[in-house]
């Protein structure tokens, strides 16, 4: 099956500022594809080129086999879009907006169902909605046309934790219907839970495309083990282990860093010496660590 979205060598500059330098990726039928990157990395510019809202300076884009700039009618019918910034008239009511937008599409979804799923009230005026409610409405409008592909820029930014979880469930339901989804996000938990694959974008370039687990292991981040030993002992015993890269003390705690096998090695040494580890805490490398590692920290620039 050909990819649903194919972006190759996309380049886009605003005046003399290069926003997207060289971005290529493909998105397959039915997957949730995440786009992660720091503020200003070029995520929104990239997806707006895919949506046909911006004209790339170089590169080619195909969505469902269509050209986003020339096949407007066909593309807009099949592509649902949530813009990072985008508003409705302030005096428009939520129900009116959904009813209006659903009339734009050949086979719309049931807008009342969406209204309910997203916990919106039909009569509220757009201008009176809170930021999170506006965001939910914008998600509903992206889905109301029953799209084959949905591009959601900052899906849950501004939502409270409960609304965020509800939205994730909604998106999982949408994916279950076979809709292909591109998700721009800053929330690692969201990316980890929803995305099949993630493109990390940094300074207008794709650093890596991988599964969430793949990204985490790629970053090769050390484990950090912290515990309070039941008695004093020579920490040199731990420092000599090949799996361990560092040992330090903080008040009555011992902090050990090392590779994936460090925990087992440390526990074995402690057991041999009849020491128990109180208040043991192990920090695994998270997607967040991987993100920071792979997109280059400030001092690395």
């Amino acid at each position, binding site marked *: 099956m050909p990819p649903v979205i194919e972006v190759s060598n996309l380049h886009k500059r605003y005046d003399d500022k290069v926003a997207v330098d060289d971005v290529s990726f493909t998105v397959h039928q039915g997957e949730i594809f995440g786009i992660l990157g720091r503020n200003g990395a070029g995520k929104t510019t990239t997806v707006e080129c895919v949506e046909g809202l911006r004209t790339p300076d170089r590169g080619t884009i195909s969505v469902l086999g269509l050209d986003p700039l020339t096949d407007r009618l066909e593309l*807009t019918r099949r592509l649902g879009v949530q*813009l990072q910034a985008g*508003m*409705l008239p302030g*005096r428009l009511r939520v129900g009116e907006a959904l*009813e*209006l*937008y659903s009339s734009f*599409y050949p086979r719309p979804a049931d807008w009342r169902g969406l209204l309910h799923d997203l916990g919106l009230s039909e009569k509220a005026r757009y201008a009176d909605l809170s930021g999170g409610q506006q965001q939910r409405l914008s998600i509903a409008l992206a889905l109301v*046309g029953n799209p084959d592909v949905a591009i959601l820029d900052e899906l849950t930014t501004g939502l409270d934790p409960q609304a965020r979880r509800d939205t994730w469930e909604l998106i999982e339901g949408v994916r279950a219907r076979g809709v292909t989804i591109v998700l721009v996000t800053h929330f690692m938990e969201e990316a980890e839970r929803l995305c099949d694959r993630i493109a990390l974008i940094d300074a207008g370039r794709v650093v890596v495309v991988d599964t969430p687990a793949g990204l985490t292991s790629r970053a090769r981040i050390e484990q950090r083990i912290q515990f309070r030993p039941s008695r004093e002992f020579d920490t040199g015993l731990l420092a000599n282990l090949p799996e361990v890269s560092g040992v330090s003390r903080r008040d009555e705690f011992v902090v050990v860093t090392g590779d994936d096998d460090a925990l087992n090695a440390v526990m074995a040494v402690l057991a041999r010496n009849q020491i128990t580890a109180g208040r043991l805490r192990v920090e695994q490398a998270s997607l967040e660590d991987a993100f920071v590692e792979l997109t280059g920290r400030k001092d690395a620039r």
Partner: protein
Amino acid sequence: MNGATWRLIAVEGKLSIRDKAALVWGVACPLVVLVILGSIPSLREPITEDLTVFDVYVPVLILFNVAILAMTALPSTLAGYRENGVLRRMRTTPVGPVRVLAAQLVANFVIALVAMALFLAVAGLGFGVEPPRNPLGFAVAWLLATAALLSIGLLVTALVPSRAAATAIGTLLFFPMMFFAGLWVPIAQMPPLLQDVSAYTPLGAGMGAFQDAYLGDFPSASPLVILVVHAVVCAAIAVRWFRWE
């Protein structure tokens, strides 16, 4: 036209009505002025063998209504849509932003049409002002004047960078335009030079055409041509150079 277009027009109409400013300034205000002027006995005395001062003010107030809608309501709404990303959001739908513009134009047109009928009815039933003796001529004059004004409003929207600028420029144009329609000094009492200038302005030409229709003639060619030129030229420039973002 399909369902989406009609729904869009209905929604834009509703939004225009919810925007109290347009109704207050564009409809209620000229209506109140109409009633006040109608209640002043001295304005009801004939100045020519056919017309009273009040008779002349009825079409002036009809143009006032169209001018408020076209020069202030339309540009500030549409420039606001552009500024707030409403038009951008529409670009991602199959309907596109052009039809939002069209729906706004239609909505304002319909409001102006209803207001015009209301003004004529109030003037006729309330104060015994005779309706235009040439109804067809009046209708043509009103249609062309409304088209010219909406085009100019669209042109303002097309070229200005922001909503604030649209409102400011629209309002700034409104006053001289109304002056040349004879809001403050009836055209007949203007010095000849100003009368000549007035004839080339959209509202001056509109008044000229209305005058003919009131007196029973089909409007003469020159005001109609001037209105058509304003309508076509402004619309063409607006369409060609419309700023979408």
